[in-house]
């Protein structure tokens, strides 16, 4: 155990914190008030993950035994109950608890799994089967706005990215050969749509808490497009250019908004693309190592300076 009591007393003595704040901080530090909020959050995330994984396996393996209609109905009812709990709270004008947030997330994930299952079993959309993903994205986005849920917005964006064929597995970035140009282009298109959504959301002004989520998705999708292009010889220059532009934008935006995340994105993605490009374009191993070393030192200095600027510290 450790204690910050002495330091808090000094802050109180120097009148940096008033007596009531001092009492609160002291209670938090010595554990006389103790929150298990994060333990609950982790437990709820794991619970939702377990249930959704279990449902996914049922959908995959028990089709013949249980029958598609029964499965679709059962999961649909479970999803509806989850949504009903959230909607009831909203109608009553009560705020959702952390458990309510995760029950709603569970409902959204069950709905996603159910829609995919219904489409694959009954072929309702026929040749246009892949449209179930943008449909899902619209449904989840509408629910996110209606119920004011960042988690649902994230589910909607994942469905949208899925429709564009953007993989969520990092290893796909490094072990994907062929089709990189098309995949990169789709990731960039998706980033563009999310950016447009972000601008519209900002203009609407009612849900500023969603801007941050949309920002993260848009810039990451853009960077993924750049990194995908860096994989193939014919698109490497486009990849470097895309990453360079997005890095400059990310760092500038991060500095303007004093947001460390965008600066880190800009610097880290730039460093990765430089490493890939150096390994691909330079034949001499020694020269490659030197280029990577100097680039990494350069971007580290850039990150240090921008970090200091954001925090208002001396460089």
């Amino acid at each position, binding site marked *: 155990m450790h204690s910050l009591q002495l330091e808090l007393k000094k802050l109180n003595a120097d009148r940096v914190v008033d007596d009531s704040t001092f009492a609160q901080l002291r209670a938090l530090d010595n554990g006389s008030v103790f929150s298990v909020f994060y333990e609950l959050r982790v437990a709820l995330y794991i619970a939702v993950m377990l249930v959704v994984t279990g449902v996914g396996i049922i959908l995959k393996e028990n089709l013949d035994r249980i029958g598609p209609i029964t499965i679709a109905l059962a999961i649909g009812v479970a999803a509806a109950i989850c949504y009903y709990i959230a909607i009831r709270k909203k109608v009553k004008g009560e705020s959702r608890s952390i458990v309510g947030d995760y029950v709603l997330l569970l409902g959204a994930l069950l709905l996603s799994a159910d829609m995919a299952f219904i489409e694959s079993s009954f072929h309702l959309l026929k040749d246009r089967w*892949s449209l179930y993903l943008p449909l*899902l994205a619209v449904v989840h986005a509408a629910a996110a706005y209606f119920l004011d849920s960042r988690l649902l917005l994230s589910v909607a964006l994942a469905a949208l990215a899925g429709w564009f064929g953007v993989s969520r597995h990092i290893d796909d970035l490094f072990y994907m050969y062929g089709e990189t140009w098309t995949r990169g282009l789709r990731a960039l298109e998706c980033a563009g749509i999310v950016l447009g959504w972000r601008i519209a959301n900002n203009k609407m002004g009612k849900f500023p808490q969603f801007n941050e989520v949309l920002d993260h998705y848009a810039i990451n999708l853009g960077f993924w497009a750049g990194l995908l292009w860096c994989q193939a010889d014919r698109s490497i220059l486009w990849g470097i250019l895309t990453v360079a532009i997005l890095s400059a934008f990310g760092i500038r935006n991060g500095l303007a908004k004093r947001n460390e995340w965008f600066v880190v994105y800009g610097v880290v993605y730039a460093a990765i693309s430089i490493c890939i490009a150096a390994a691909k374009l330079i034949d001499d191993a020694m020269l490659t190592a030197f280029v990577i070393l100097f680039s990494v030192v350069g971007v580290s200095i850039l990150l240090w300076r921008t970090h200091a600027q954001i925090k208002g510290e001396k460089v």
Partner: protein
Amino acid sequence: MSNFRPAAVQERWLLLAARWSAYKSAESVKEGISGWRTVGFLTRCAFFLLGMIAAIAVSAIIAIAFRGHFELGAGVILLVTAETLIASRRLFSAGAEEALIVSAYVLIAVALTTIDHSVDSIVTFGVAVAIGLAGIRLLNPLLTTLGAMTISLAISFSLGLAIFHSSSMNSRVDLWVSIYCYGVAVVALVLGARQFQRPSHDRMLDWLVIIMPMTGYAWSINDISNGFYLGEHMPMQWYILLMPLFYAIACVAVGIRRRTHAPLFAAMGCIACVAYDLRNLTGMPLQWRLILWGSVMLVASTIAERLLRKPRRGITSQQLEDRNIVLDAAELAGTALITPADKQVAADTQPAMEGGGGSFSGGGASGKY
């Protein structure tokens, strides 16, 4: 004033500034920190990654220049660079210097343990000690825990050679290694009751309390991976089941009594191990077990949240401190990862689409590779 690392009191001020960032620009805090500089979690990760790439590049340059035998030279260069960086910039937990120092220690350890010839157990032990020492030097709990975990690997190699004259794994060796891991965890749990001047020492113990029992469980099932069966009375099977169970119970009691998070997270991890070990007991298929355990967790969390909404003996389910933006981002990214939005699932059962559009994915995709 030392430039080697912050004094205990300076470290406490750094922690206070990180925990309650509203006060970090106060004169008392600045004075307490005495010029030591640190960065947030995300920037630290970025600097660590960049530091690792730089360490690999330096090692590659030395290896090419001196045709092999690069470890000692590269290690010394990285060590001098990192120490200079710390002393000149007064860096603490900034990422880059951590990557350079751990790389340097590991390279030097490898160089020293492979002078004549390399023996697996000695090299592993050397690397484990190097990682642990780097952790102690930098007051980094991740590295000290990694060191303790790597020592378990070294013990496994050493016991295998000493008892069975083979470096291959064996269930009896695994048992002793597992006992070592649980032992470290229990010692850390007991020591956690002490009042430490440095918050980092407390964190080192916290990490050991959480990670080592799970490492111990992993070692114990290394050779016996069938899970627990009723009717079989093998002592090893009971050991595998009961160790995480007893440890979890102890952790819950300690966590609530001391009002600390680490034992509670450790208990959650150990309960997951117990649940995994009991997987054969009911004969239920995997999917139903997942749903059952998930539902049990959901219900238990709901009850806990409701019961603790109003603090009971000071314990509450309400969020009391600032939003944790790293956890928020991890939550959103995690949500995206578990969202069933993979077109391949649907594509597996669909007839190939013949109409126009892309060939791989996106609108109008055929699902063909």
